[in-house]
């Protein structure tokens, strides 16, 4: 009876507070959150934070080439004498663009297609859509992305497109399986009986109930998408020089491997750090959202 006096707004705020409490209880999730925020701050304020912002473009200083990690160059310098730390800081921009861009393209597409397929499951449209996702999922994502970006011009946008092509079916699958069960719920049937339009049922009745898993999958995916992007840039199919990209930096550094190890190792560790933080954050979000459903 008391619940009726609480307004919807307050209840929602209370729910948010509870989720945050649950999230903040997990050390791992907090580490992830801090790491992700740090990466975002580095990317946005790169020109202010990087010790040598001019080194992020075509810059040559052969006198200071291949300097091992020292006070002047915290993570050493590369064969052109550019500061590796500065280049890593600028390269976080490309990594984040990759993650955000791909999800921005993949989620709406995959979700809408999944809604349509799920709503029409059992009919020809549903079957055809799901068989098409099978086909896309039959090729390993990295390989499909490699092939697509190989035939296109190598740049960041095409790399994003290549990863998107191999990634949307996962969202279609997820939404499809949820829609199949939600469309038999009473509230959906009630909406159908009162003559609601198809789009109203799909987007206003079904979609909101699919959101928590979609959100969870997005936070869990972003790390993997960044990793795929780094793999593409490793083979030269991402951001083109002189713009720094983490994968390209590892590939270039690998040529100088045992002696000048810092050229390859630090960008590699940077990839590890960024992906790890996003994964930890994703796990935290998943735990928060999944306990809420119970």
């Amino acid at each position: 009876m008391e619940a009726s006096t609480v307004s919807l707004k307050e209840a929602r705020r209370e729910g948010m507070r509870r989720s945050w409490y649950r999230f903040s209880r997990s050390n791992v999730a907090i580490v992830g959150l801090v790491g992700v925020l740090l990466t975002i701050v580095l990317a946005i304020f790169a020109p202010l934070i990087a010790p040598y912002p001019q080194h992020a473009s075509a810059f040559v200083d052969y006198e200071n080439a291949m300097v091992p990690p020292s006070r002047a160059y915290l993570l050493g310098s590369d064969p052109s004498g550019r500061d590796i730390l500065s280049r890593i800081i600028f390269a976080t921009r490309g990594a984040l663009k990759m993650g955000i861009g791909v999800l921005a393209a993949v989620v709406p597409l995959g979700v809408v297609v999944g809604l349509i397929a799920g709503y029409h499951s059992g009919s020809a449209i549903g079957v055809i859509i799901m068989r098409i996702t099978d086909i896309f999922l039959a090729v390993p994502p990295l390989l499909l992305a490699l092939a697509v970006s190989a035939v296109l011009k190598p740049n960041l946008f095409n790399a994003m497109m290549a990863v998107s092509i191999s990634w949307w079916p996962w969202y279609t699958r997820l939404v499809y399986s949820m829609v199949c069960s939600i469309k038999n719920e009473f509230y959906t049937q009630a909406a159908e009986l009162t003559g609601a339009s198809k789009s109203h049922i799909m987007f206003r009745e079904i979609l909101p109930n699919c959101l928590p898993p979609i959100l969870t999958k997005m936070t869990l995916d972003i790390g993997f998408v960044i990793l795929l992007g780094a793999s593409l840039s490793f083979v030269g199919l991402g951001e083109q020089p002189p713009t720094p990209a983490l994968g390209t930096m590892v590939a270039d550094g690998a040529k100088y491997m045992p002696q000048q190890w810092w050229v390859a190792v630090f960008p590699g560790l940077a990839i590890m750090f960024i992906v790890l933080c996003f994964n930890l954050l994703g796990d935290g979000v998943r735990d928060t959202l999944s306990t809420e459903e119970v």
Partner: protein
Amino acid sequence: MRKTWSSMLLRRLLQSILVLIGVSILIFGISRMVPGDPARMALGPRTPEWAVENLRKQLNLDKPLPVQYGLWLLKMLRGDLGESLVTRRLVNDDLRDFLPATAELIVVAAIIEIIGGILLGVFAARYSQTWFDGFTRVLAYLGVATPSFVWAIIFLLIFSFAWPILPATGRLSAGIITPPRITGMIVLDGILSGNFAAAWDCLLHLILPAISLAMYGVAQSARITRASMIENMERDSVYAHAAAGVPRRVIMTKYVLKPSLIPTVSVMALDIVAMAGNAFLVEMIFNYPGLSRYGMTAMLNKDLNAIVAVILILGLCFVVVNIIVDFIVALLDPRVAHYGGV
């Protein structure tokens, strides 16, 4: 019982054929996404127009797309993958040279993933909440977050420079005689022809790249095995068996491990096929003469026939692996064989 098995096999085969046809359309589509004219690109800008026109005719590039697809598919079905536009050799010959090396690498990596993933997962579940469980957890987080080529660099640095116990690059050490070609996989050829020195040397060269390649899968399958082991360990049936005096070892292997492997097997299959993509990157670091160098030059030169062949073969592998997995799952899960699906 036998009948459901064979009908399941038939259904899966039909589905796989449909998927393969779809994959072939997808690959054909990708290969025609290329901006620019593949014939012109293969011959270079200085070739006269009539020669380009000839090649275009030869490659059927002048016909409408569905006809091109039909002709292309017929050729593929005959096992004719065409001629590489760059090396000017038959793609089949190129693949015969490069594929076994990569296949060997993936097989060793798959073995490492299967053994490592299951063992780590089982022991993490058996000794959960101990230091070993914590160690596995950290390893799992790092394994999933790190691209295989970064592992490759880290392992290379540690195990062949800082503490040199394993060879760094290539496939065989200098001075080792390559065994006669039987399968193209040197470890296997060495054993078959009695050249154990070569087999052993090649195996040593494979360890670092294979571990780098397997790290992601080991991490993932260890986590999944642990989770499903713990879930199954808390079943009432397990307590009942324990109360009835069934030895712990029997409970763990027969009643806990066996059903716990079902999700692991499906995930492993995906990982192992995905290794094909990552093998490219790892091979580059270790300077390993596999498909990577071939595939990379093909991609950079927009060598369509070669790209298509590589993806098509891997798509085929995927379908075959999936069928195998369905059978392993059916063996592990009696419900599948009985009802033809869960």
